[in-house]
């Protein structure tokens, strides 16, 4: 269990993280979302004491990171795949982490196999692609077989197979009771892998809830109807105070999109006067739509167009 309580980090006059509080539960993948510059990476660095927080506390199963004995056996962290000396062999990089963290050297071969780098483990990291470096970073995070895993943009640079692999890996870790906190800009991936979301903007918490709940909260569910009696259905829907928009040409269209009524209500209205339905579909917005709707004001940087 991760608990972040009142975390604040300033860089000069700029407040990067502003009284941020949230938690991530064991057995679940928690997506950590926010626009560029919203403070996600700074928060993650503060969580393990790399950046000095100005206020607040972060605990892992009740203990601050610096109080953990052999911390990499409790918390595994991947902050940036580039945090490795390019002239060092991958296996040596992992050995330094294992030895410093009090982990048996034999784990190095285990994690290399886990991330699919056994055949290139003795190559120097400068020869690695970004995707291979991501895998190496994940291997370092998993060295101590930790109960908590924190990953910052782990899918960066991965090909589609790699992205699916990391999704399955994180789901697998969570299914074994581990706490997984993962930040990503790939919202489609997050919607597939995360159970819960923590969304921040300008260093502040915007929302914290399960993924489905977040989408429901921040988008409007609509019902799409196609029927030869669409005109009558629209009139009945509007009479009940809901909105209905004919799709396409008013005179010839047989489709409408209805907001403000549940799909069962629309079906019952059609049944009341015996209307034939060719389509009755609930249209739900994506996580991306929900994310953009709540972070629009909090985006630090945006294009001019």
């Amino acid at each position, binding site marked *: 269990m991760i608990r972040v309580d009142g975390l604040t980090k300033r860089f000069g006059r700029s407040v990067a993280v502003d009284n941020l509080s949230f938690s991530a539960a064991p057995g679940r993948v928690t997506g950590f979302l926010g626009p560029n510059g919203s403070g996600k990476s700074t928060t993650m660095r503060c969580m393990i004491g790399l950046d000095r927080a100005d206020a607040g506390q972060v605990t892992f199963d009740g203990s601050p990171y610096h109080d953990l004995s052999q911390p990499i056996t409790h918390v595994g962290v991947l902050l940036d795949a580039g945090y490795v000396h390019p002239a060092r062999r991958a296996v040596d990089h992992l050995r330094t982490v294992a030895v410093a963290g*009090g982990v048996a050297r034999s784990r190095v071969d285990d994690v290399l196999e886990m991330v699919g780098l056994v055949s290139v483990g003795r190559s120097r990291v400068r020869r690695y692609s970004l995707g291979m470096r991501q895998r190496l970073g994940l291997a370092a995070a998993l060295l101590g077989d930790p109960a908590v895993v924190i990953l910052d943009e782990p899918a960066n640079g991965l090909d589609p197979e790699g992205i699916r692999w990391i999704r399955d890996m994180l789901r697998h870790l969570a299914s074994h009771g581990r706490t997984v906190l993962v930040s990503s800009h790939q919202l489609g991936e997050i919607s597939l892998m995360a159970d819960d979301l923590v969304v921040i903007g300008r260093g502040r918490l915007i929302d914290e809830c399960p993924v489905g709940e977040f989408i429901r909260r921040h988008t409007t569910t609509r019902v799409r109807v196609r029927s030869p009696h669409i005109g009558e259905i629209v009139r009945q829907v509007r009479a009940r105070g809901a909105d209905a928009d004919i799709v396409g040409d008013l005179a010839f269209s047989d489709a409408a999109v209805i907001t403000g009524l549940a799909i069962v209500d629309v079906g019952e209205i059609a049944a009341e006067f015996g209307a034939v339905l060719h389509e009755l579909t609930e249209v739900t917005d994506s996580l991306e739509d929900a994310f953009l709707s709540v972070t629009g004001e909090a985006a630090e940087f945006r294009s001019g167009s």
Partner: protein
Amino acid sequence: MTGAVLAAEWIKVHTIRVHRVLVGVAFAFPVLVAVLVAVFTPEPRVVFGNEVIDLISGTSVVSLLLLACLWAINLTAEYAHGTIRVTYAAVPSRWRVVAAKAAIGSLVTAAVVAVTFWVAWWVSTAVLSSRGSSASLDQVRDIWATFAALIALSVVVSWFALGLGLIIRNSPATVVVTLLWPLLIENLVSLAFTLAGVDEAQRWMPYQAAITAVVDDGGGDSLGRPWGPLYFAAVAAVLVGVGMVLENRRDA
């Protein structure tokens, strides 16, 4: 756990090729110069042990500067590549990490300098002997004090580079300051003091005080032994102390 941090730092040092190259050059330079002098000196019969030791001590100072660059690079590359974050994630106590780096730097530098010193002596005197010289340790006054001063200087130089690296955190800048400090900065400061009418400024330049102590037992204007190396050690310890305080306050 402290042993584990030492072991991890040792792995970091010996798994980078440029580190091994620098150690190799630091070893080869005094040995090569001593051998070349032994081979080409026109009058080997009048070369005595004290002259060979002076030559080896002087060239060893160049090796020390190379090793100082190694320790500067070893630390500052961690900031450049972000591996310091991986290190501090594994070992949150920054004091322990820096102490381990200081210990590894001291041990490796002292070992390399000691081996280089005696290998250079053995090889060069073997060559000289084959050319009719009678150079021997008996002809060297205070050989063990000279050797101890050189080893002390080598250890302190590694601290000095570590302290600069902690403060500057940038590889090129740290290497430049590490090299220019003894070669230029101390001379300029000393000159400035002299022009301002302050006598004996040179003897209080820390690097010079320690270097002079290797080849000078305290006569003349130098602080001599053991005060030269001790004075330099105090300055280096202050540098490391300031660097450590900054390190604990800064973000990694």
